[in-house]
């Protein structure tokens, strides 16, 4: 690969992250508002408040970048960047279309993707610890415990897909889905049907990885004020905000690729996928993100011990059973 092509792709990703975060952030405001019998932002940007987040972002940039006196200064300043870098790495591994449209093409791409998605945990722990605030620290530790517990079901859910596709390469997984005929159906179907158990586990686990209700204990505004972000202000807070919605996008992209066929659409010729592919992926991501936000606005919050129990006693055994089933069916079929 040419180095300039690589740099170009990196720049695209760098532009894509704020854009994706913007669209998702706006969608979130609107979806939540309408579910809550509100209109949400309506003024900024003339049309239904589309400029609201831009205004919010500018507001954050103007604010003073406060660092608490007793904070561990370098760690405190660096933590938001670590969180965002984790998201950037995930974005690099998303296949947005047929081969030239992906940034990297690795044999163990899914492995890299899932590994990168948990990098943000370190940033969260750094933020929680270095803030010198008791609420921040509790939030940080809660986040760490939660992300560790839910990493496992997330990966186990993906293992079912990997077994069925026979590859860790994401393009390979998409291709496998384009050739998968369950009981000899005419149209190939995505893995969400055969891997329905894995899909449900994946959605629940990614909701927990994203720290959204019912798994939003790290923020838990009624208990911890604002969790590990309590002491942050200005553009550093904006970094967390960006990372939150960008990782929403990233997890939805992982889910869409693994279970909904990624950029592939049935009955569309191979050549047209160059244009249709990214659009199809965006739609699929939109569907998943809507499910995430829907759950977020519906459920109350679990308690920390209940959350751990749920992961270890339910999600992980179910994911393991799913792997076993997949193995048996793979051998039988």
């Amino acid at each position, binding site marked *: 690969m040419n180095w300039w092509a690589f740099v170009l792709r990196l720049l695209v990703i760098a532009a894509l992250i704020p854009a994706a975060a913007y669209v998702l952030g706006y969608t979130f405001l609107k979806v*939540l508002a309408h*579910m*809550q*019998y*509100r209109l949400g932002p309506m003024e900024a940007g003339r049309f239904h408040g589309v400029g609201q987040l831009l205004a919010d972002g500018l507001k954050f940039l103007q604010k003073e970048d406060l660092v608490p006196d007793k904070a561990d200064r370098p760690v405190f300043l660096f933590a938001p960047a670590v969180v965002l870098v984790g998201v950037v790495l995930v974005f690099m591994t998303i296949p947005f279309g047929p081969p030239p449209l992906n940034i990297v093409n690795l044999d163990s791409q899914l492995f890299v993707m899932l590994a990168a998605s948990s990098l943000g945990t370190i940033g969260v722990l750094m933020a929680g610890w270095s803030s010198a605030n*008791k609420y921040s620290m*509790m939030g940080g530790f809660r986040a760490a415990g939660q992300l560790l517990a839910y990493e496992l079901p997330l990966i186990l859910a993906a293992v079912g897909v990997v077994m069925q596709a026979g590859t860790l390469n994401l393009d390979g997984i998409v291709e496998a889905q384009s050739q998968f005929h369950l009981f000899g159906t005419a149209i190939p179907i995505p893995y969400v049907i055969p891997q329905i158990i894995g899909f449900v586990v994946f959605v629940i686990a990614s909701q927990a990885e994203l720290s959204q*209700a*019912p798994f*939003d*204990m790290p923020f*838990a*505004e*009624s*208990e911890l*004020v604002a969790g590990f972000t309590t002491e942050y202000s200005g553009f550093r807070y904006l970094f967390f905000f960006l990372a939150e919605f960008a990782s929403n996008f990233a997890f939805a992209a992982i889910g869409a690729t693994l279970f909904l066929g990624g950029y592939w659409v049935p009955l569309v010729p191979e050549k047209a996928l160059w244009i249709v592919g990214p659009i199809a992926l965006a739609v699929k991501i939109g569907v998943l993100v809507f499910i995430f936000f829907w759950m977020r*606005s*519906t*459920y*109350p*919050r*679990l*308690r*920390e*011990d*209940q959350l751990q129990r749920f992961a270890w006693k339910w999600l992980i055994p179910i994911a393991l059973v799913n792997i076993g089933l997949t193995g048996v069916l793979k051998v039988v079929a």
Partner: protein
Amino acid sequence: MTSVQSHLSASFAAHLADAQVAVEIETPEMTLNIGPQHPSTHGVFRLIAKVDGERVTEVEPVLGYMHRGYEKLCEVRTYAQVTALVNRLDWLSGYCNEIPFILSAEKLMGIEAPPRVQYIRTILSELARQATFLVFLGSFGIELGALTPFFHTMRDREKVLDLLESVTGGRFHPNFNRVGGILDDLPPGFVEECAAVMDDVDKMCDQVDALLFGNDIFRERTLGVGVIPLDKGLEYGVSGANIRASGCAADVRRDEPYLVYDEVDFDVVTDTRGDAFARAYCRLQETRESTRIVRQCLKALPSGPIMAKVPKVIQVPPGEVYVRAENPLGEMGYYLVSRGGRIPYRVKVRTASFNNVSVLPWLLEGVFMPDLIAILGSLYFILGDVDR
């Protein structure tokens, strides 16, 4: 090596070993100041909590940030002016606060308000109760992390407040009662509007019942959390839905009927579980009972004057009286002492929240931090009612 040196180094090693052990076994307690500014304390309320990880080992509530000296202020106000003050005790159900005070003044003067007034007072009290409980049903969800029910209950509370406003002109602080009667009659069309809103409130109750109380996570978070046994609750003087959830069928409306509560048919909702879920569920059921009471009152509403015969200048003869009433948050009582004249000599207010909060240090010992918030929410106190 001399013996002194060896002794020193030995003792040093022993100290070091002690220190190591201490580091390994003891996790230091952390003192966490919850409040006075904290999202879940409903105002300026402070809890000094000693926490060991997520577990709360000891809690000391600090009250008084909102003390406004209303009892003292009552001693330099005329009877008509006092109602404006007591509106602000439990600010969510301002109207209900007026009732026992006015009744105590009327009792000392030997006046009884006309039947129509009694009915209107009952209707408005129950509307205030519904408005308060709708806030509770929504905000309790927020405390447990469910944001959505809050907006829906607030929408329907708005309708109830509109009704209150159409009668009294005030939403939070109606200041509508006068000794011997009320300020004004019901506006035209009130009966029909009120009946329609009662249907909305009932529908809201059904929705909250399904969305919140039927939710597994909600049940997991509240069932068996913060259990107040009946004897403990009675010891601390807990009242209202908090004690009814522990199995005590105490309701002033039933036990010592005032206004027209002896003429309407309603159930005293009780539960035996005594936990956060039971307290919240009792309030939900009481909202339903409340709409039932309002419907009956609307049907039986008599016509007649809205003011008894009272002198131009209200002067209360010497004497003392204690009148209590069932307010949304629990039992509220006024101990009124008069030495004659236009102003009360002493007014002692028994507010429900103050006694309900007193159970906290006992109740919060050894709970988890998230449960602490759930328990605070389920006790449902208003800071204006605690601090006066």
